[in-house]
């Protein structure tokens, strides 16, 4: 959903697994919807980890652990690998996450998050390890993501890092604009390009 970003300060949900693929974020059988109903996708986020095969809640999975909550998901490296399904980004947004922190994101998924106003924040391995440690010691650990300043801070330890975000995307996030808005303003350039080939 288009929404303006500024500063987000929140508790975190930790998922210290590597190579979390988009089939886990939203299994294929939930891709049959023909509308962008974020609530439906959010309800099925991490479906097969969140629920037991009989449909009951899996108490061991972090989303079902009442100690953890917040708008920030913290995940192990290579988050969002595999299928290009944007439904994974819709599920993350639909569940209520606005930021995903990891040391490494898969390319397509990263773009999908940005196109859905979920901010992927890439941090160093050290920052990530320390953050998992802080959250495991104190689930109430707060993280501050300052989009204008492009900084992420673990408030338990005070450790702060700058994260990458290109100037164009930053402008889009701060002003709730998407790429289609840009492209529709540049139709003449496209026609000119076609004619020049």
């Amino acid at each position, binding site marked *: 959903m288009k929404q303006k970003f500024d500063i987000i300060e929140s508790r975190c949900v930790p998922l*210290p*697994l*590597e*190579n979390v*693929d988009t*089939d*886990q974020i939203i*299994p*294929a*059988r939930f*891709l*049959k*919807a*023909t*509308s*962008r109903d974020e609530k439906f996708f959010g309800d099925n986020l991490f479906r*097969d980890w969140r629920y037991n*095969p009989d449909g009951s809640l899996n108490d061991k999975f972090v989303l079902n652990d009442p100690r953890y909550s917040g708008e920030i998901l913290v995940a*192990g*490296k*290579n988050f969002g*690998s*595999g*299928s*290009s*399904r*944007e*439904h994974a*980004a819709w599920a993350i947004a639909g569940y209520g996450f606005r930021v995903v922190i990891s040391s*490494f994101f*898969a*390319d*397509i998924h990263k*773009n*999908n998050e940005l*196109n*859905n106003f979920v901010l992927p924040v890439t941090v160093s*391995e050290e920052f990530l*390890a320390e953050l998992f440690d802080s959250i495991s010691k104190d689930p109430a650990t707060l993280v501050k993501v300052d989009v204008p300043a492009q900084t992420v801070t673990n408030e338990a330890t005070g450790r702060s890092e700058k994260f990458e975000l*290109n*100037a*164009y*995307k930053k402008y889009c996030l701060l002003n709730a604009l*998407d*790429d*289609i808005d*840009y*492209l*529709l303003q*540049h*139709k003449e*350039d*496209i026609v000119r*390009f*076609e004619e020049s080939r």
Partner: protein
Amino acid sequence: MNTLFDKIWDSHVVNSIEEGPQQLYIDRLYCHEVTSPQAFEGLRQRGIKCFRPEQIFCMPDHNTPTHDQDKEIENEISRKQVETLKKNAEQFGLTHYGMMSPDNGIIHVVGPEKGLSLPGMTIVCGDSHTSTHGAMGAVAFGIGTSEVEMVLASQCILQQKPKSMRISIEGQLGKGVTAKDVALYLMQQMTTSGATGYFIEYSGSVIRDMSMEGRLTLCNLSIEMGARGGFIAPDEKTFEYVKGREYAPAGEDWDKAVEYWKTLRSGDDAVFDKEISFKAEDIAPMITYGTNPGMGTAIAGTIPAESEISEEGLESFRTSLDYMGLAPGAGVLGKKVDYVFLGACTNGRIEDFRAFASIVKGRKKNPDVVAWLVPGSWAVSKQITEEGLDKVLVEAGFEIRQPGCSACLAMNDDKIPAGKYSVSTSNRNFQGRQGPGSRTLLASPLTAAAAAVTGVVTDPRTLL
């Protein structure tokens, strides 16, 4: 600089946004039923039309059943998704190859087959395996649904230009070592994130010697190393494959096209952001044991011991083997197999069926194995019959199904039951990929055939 990737990419840049992405012109957009409905809905909400409808081709493949395609799809939600694509194509004036149309099949099999994917093009689809079309010498990559909407609306997307990587493989592949094994070997060596941020150009004698079908398989799996795409500079094999296909240029246009296509190669002075080389001799038939495609081993090898895994990766490794019901340090040969799947955009082409038939010919399917043989398109299906492969397969106890993505991601009825082992020629062994609880061992069509006749994981070289 001066790589083929640079040449194709740069010649499609309409605008470069300062400190931002580039506006890239797209020659071809493919749409399937799963990742397009919300994009069309977006156009309706904005009240706009498709900008270049003649450059867009639609076909259902993910939900299609692999039997009784002449009847209505039983699953109501699948049916609705397939019908929605047809309606959207009609409303926006796009070409649509519906179920049972002789042109239908898996989008990444049909595109090259019809001459829709050509050298030098930029090609996208809401599907990560769009990298397949790179085998034609095109820059092809998967995108999300918002990006599909961008292309529908403007025939462009905004993208950061990926870095370039060259993977060279020199030497000669051994007997029974296929393009699929090369890809599985690369994934094991590179890991599933080893090429993230890059676009790969494959080169070397192994690639030159590889058939077009093999190249399509190799490029298909580029995404499994994290790469946005992978491609191969077009050569005589490419031209020969393209010539005469329905949408290929013809007559004078053909000569002009070939003249241009011959210029599509990296310069001798090309500088890649990364260069890696491998030796053909090091590659054996491969099989995966874990829950990502990088978790593979030579078929006669062993699963790594825990001591070989990094501390950060240990939890994921244990979760993975636990799911697979396999032990660290163990071998995979001789493991009982319940299902065999031949097909998908990875291995659903004629050469894959020839390979499978070469092993099962004169043998019988193991009675304990359920085998699903799913051609990648109706054109492949037709060729199977024309070459008489159907007789060989049926005689050995196999049945050929109707085309579609099928058990690769089990969006139709072709689901591997929980706990069962499947030797699959598809592209992903993720948890639940082939159905909730399914356990996938990725391998080549030869290895799949060997498993199908013996009922256990078998080195295909022993049956050749």
